[in-house]
């Protein structure tokens, strides 16, 4: 493989430098513009790189001069896929930065946010380019650090959420680490390079390899936000600054997580449809779709509702990649980029609403669509995209995922379709409650947001439309070249192949609409349109348990940890006593004894020396 240009190294170095500059800058306003500038340059670099990869027609590689002592091979490799996600990440960075200029205007505590944003950009670029798994882990763990840092900087109440995110993401990173170790075991320690292993036909799914796959999969999908390590995301949505949500959980982490999942599944293990691993991925995907969307349905907060969708949509991507058939994989990856676009856009509308109306509580919102038309339009397009309404981008990627799922088993298709119905229902509820109806008493009348906030939204809206109406552009230009070998001549661009599936989708959407209209009429408000599902016999108890966080592994873990810590507390006390009291007394006793033996008498010291001679003589003589 030919060497990659210096540009690639700049993709890591430049934002890292930007983060340092931001840390050192004295004023908050300048920070945001520095971030915009750095992101803009990053976009330029990434596009240049993309063109270089495209022109070369194959992957480019770079390896640091070998660091013999550490045995670490610091190697980068950039293929079409990596160049594409790199460009996308840089693009989201510039949009969120621009949005943040106005969003954070007048605040003076944004140093951490901006530095964290640029540091995350640098680290994620590194992770996307890394070829060696250990090297990848380095960037991956760095991202854990910036994640913690950015949530923590969100405000006084964010501390607990930050710790929760750190624990959950850290746990999944630990799984990733274990998986890498197992890959090393099963490779015999010869190479930990993704491309080398991939070129040699991938790892077998035997006992070691299988466990490695599961652990790596947990690491990758958890980064993307799938079950069961997802529960920090809704909490972060409330506590962390909104641009953080639009940037990390909605865009960058999806790109990273699904990118790595695809790398692992398709390259490292060369996943085939007839394996248990494929089924495992699909089950995980389907479960993530359904459970998260069911939770989203009953949320009463704009941002929390969105955050559950950020989890739910990951399910489609995992399901798509897990099908291991061309249509599904293309659909999953296409959904990844589509999701990043519409979900970022949705979070940005959430931020706009929060900034202008002063709240994101759906019970207190209402009727702001007229006052904020740009935001409303953006919301409508993005919501249609996420619900899979033709002709927006989400429709096409979902159709591909359906296609792939149906090819494996109808049950996966059914789950995905049900998820779509509920998604549509929850967005009907959200839009109705927030933008239509009447405002609650006592809320201020909002105005449209400034240009620097609506431009990013409109750019994303344009993207959603473009990627839908003219889908050959993303599919032929971005997605399908990634899978050139596996596609075997398939081309998924253009209109969906199966009209039956399209019809079923339309019926499902119509069902969602009907349900909403019926529910809204029955309860008299958009907010309560899905109450009949919420309070349905059987479901209401489950929801109540979910509200009490019975299903949250972090909170359940805390209970176990608390019990465990109580036990270890007393154990620890005993050990402490040995250390603090016994050992100190013994040490000081010996020390005092030694001091008494050193009374400064010459003759005593000489006698000691002579005794020492005898000891020396005895040891030499006896051996």
């Amino acid at each position, binding site marked *: 493989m030919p060497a990659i240009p210096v540009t690639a190294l700049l993709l890591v170095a430049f934002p890292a430098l930007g983060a340092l500059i931001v840390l050192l800058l004295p004023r908050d306003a300048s920070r945001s513009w520095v971030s915009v500038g750095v992101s803009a340059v990053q976009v330029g670099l990434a596009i240049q790189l993309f063109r270089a990869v495209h022109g070369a027609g194959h992957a480019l590689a770079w390896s640091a001069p070998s660091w013999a002592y550490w045995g670490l091979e610091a190697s980068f490799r950039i293929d079409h896929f990596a160049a594409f996600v790199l460009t996308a990440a840089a693009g989201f960075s510039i949009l969120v930065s621009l949005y943040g200029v106005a969003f954070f205007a007048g605040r003076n505590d944004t140093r951490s946010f901006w530095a964290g944003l640029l540091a995350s950009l640098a680290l994620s670029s590194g992770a996307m380019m890394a070829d060696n798994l250990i090297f990848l882990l380095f960037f991956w763990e760095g991202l854990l650090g910036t994640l913690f840092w950015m949530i923590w900087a969100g405000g006084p109440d964010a501390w607990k959420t930050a710790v929760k995110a750190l624990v959950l993401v850290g746990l999944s990173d630990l799984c990733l680490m274990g998986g890498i170790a197992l890959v090393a075991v099963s490779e015999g320690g010869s190479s930990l390079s993704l491309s080398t292993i991939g070129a040699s036909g991938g790892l077998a799914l035997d006992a070691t390899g299988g466990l490695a796959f599961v652990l790596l999969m947990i690491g990758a999908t958890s980064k993307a936000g799938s079950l069961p390590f997802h529960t920090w995301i809704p909490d972060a949505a409330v506590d962390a600054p909104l641009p953080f949500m639009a940037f990390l959980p909605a865009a960058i982490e999806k790109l990273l997580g699904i990118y790595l999942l695809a790398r692992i599944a398709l390259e490292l293990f060369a996943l085939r449809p007839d394996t248990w691993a494929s089924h495992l991925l699909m089950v995980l995907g389907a479960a993530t779709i359904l459970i998260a969307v069911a939770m989203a349905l009953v949320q009463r907060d704009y941002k929390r509702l969105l955050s559950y969708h950020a989890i739910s949509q990951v399910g489609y991507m995992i399901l798509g990649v897990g099908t291991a058939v061309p249509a599904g994989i293309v659909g999953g990856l296409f959904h990844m980029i589509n999701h990043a676009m519409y979900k970022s856009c949705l979070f940005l509308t959430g931020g706009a609403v929060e900034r202008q109306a002063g709240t994101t509580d759906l019970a207190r919102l209402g009727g702001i669509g007229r006052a904020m038309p740009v935001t409303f339009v953006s919301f409508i397009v993005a919501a249609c995209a996420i619900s899979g309404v033709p002709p927006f981008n989400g429709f096409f990627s979902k159709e591909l995922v359906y296609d792939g799922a149906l090819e494996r088993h109808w049950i996966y298709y059914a789950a995905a379709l049900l998820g779509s119905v509920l998604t549509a229902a929850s967005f009907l509820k959200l839009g109705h409650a927030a933008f239509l109806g009447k405002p609650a008493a006592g809320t201020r009348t909002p105005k449209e947001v400034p240009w620097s906030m609506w431009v990013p939204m409109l750019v994303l809206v344009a993207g959603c439309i473009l990627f839908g109406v003219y889908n050959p552009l993303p599919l032929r230009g971005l997605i399908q070249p990634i899978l050139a070998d596996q596609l075997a001549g398939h081309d998924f661009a253009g209109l969906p192949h199966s009209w039956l599936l399209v019809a079923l989708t339309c019926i499902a959407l119509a069902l969602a609409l009907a349900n909403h209209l019926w529910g809204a009429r029955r309860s008299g408000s958009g907010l309560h349109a899905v109450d009949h599902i919420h309070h349905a016999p059987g479901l209401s108890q489950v929801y109540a348990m979910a509200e009490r966080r019975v299903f949250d592994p972090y909170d359940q873990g805390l209970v176990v940890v608390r019990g465990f810590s109580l036990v270890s507390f007393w154990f620890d006390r005993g050990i402490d006593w040995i250390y603090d009291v016994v050992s100190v007394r013994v040490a000081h006793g010996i020390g005092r004894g030694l001091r008494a033996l050193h009374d400064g008498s010459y*003759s005593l010291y000489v*006698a000691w020396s*002579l005794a020492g001679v*005898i000891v020396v*003589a005895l040891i030499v*003589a006896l051996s």
Partner: protein
Amino acid sequence: MTLELVLLVLLVVAAVWTVLARGLVGAAIGLAVTSVVLSVLLFQMHAPWAAVFELSVCAGLITVVFVSAVALTRAESPQELARATERRWRRYVALPILLVVVAVALAYLGVPEIPPSRPMGEPGVGETLWRLRPTDVLGQVLILFTGVLGVVVLFKERGNDAR
């Protein structure tokens, strides 16, 4: 032979006196006498090399430093003197024990046969030294110079104190 016996006796007497002397000055003089006697003895026994080393290192140097140290100490007060006299013998308790241990050790190991010494060639001592052991000469110059320097430094300190 008689001369050697006399010298040996003198050596032991001087050595014991050195150890038992009450004042440090006495001990230092005793050590010097011991060294000189030993040196003469070595010359007498046709070991000029050893004699030169003994004389220069032991008598020349350690005594110099010892005397200078003595010059720096102050006299004992009567109480200290009395206490020291009282304790005087106690510090030698270990000596017989050590002798016994060495004796036992030698008995256990068997007193070995000492190889006969090799007589040196007869050219002048100085010439032999320079030809065979130039490094040692460098070392000895250094020792002597340091010793003299030490005496100068320490005596100067004493002069400052007196003033």
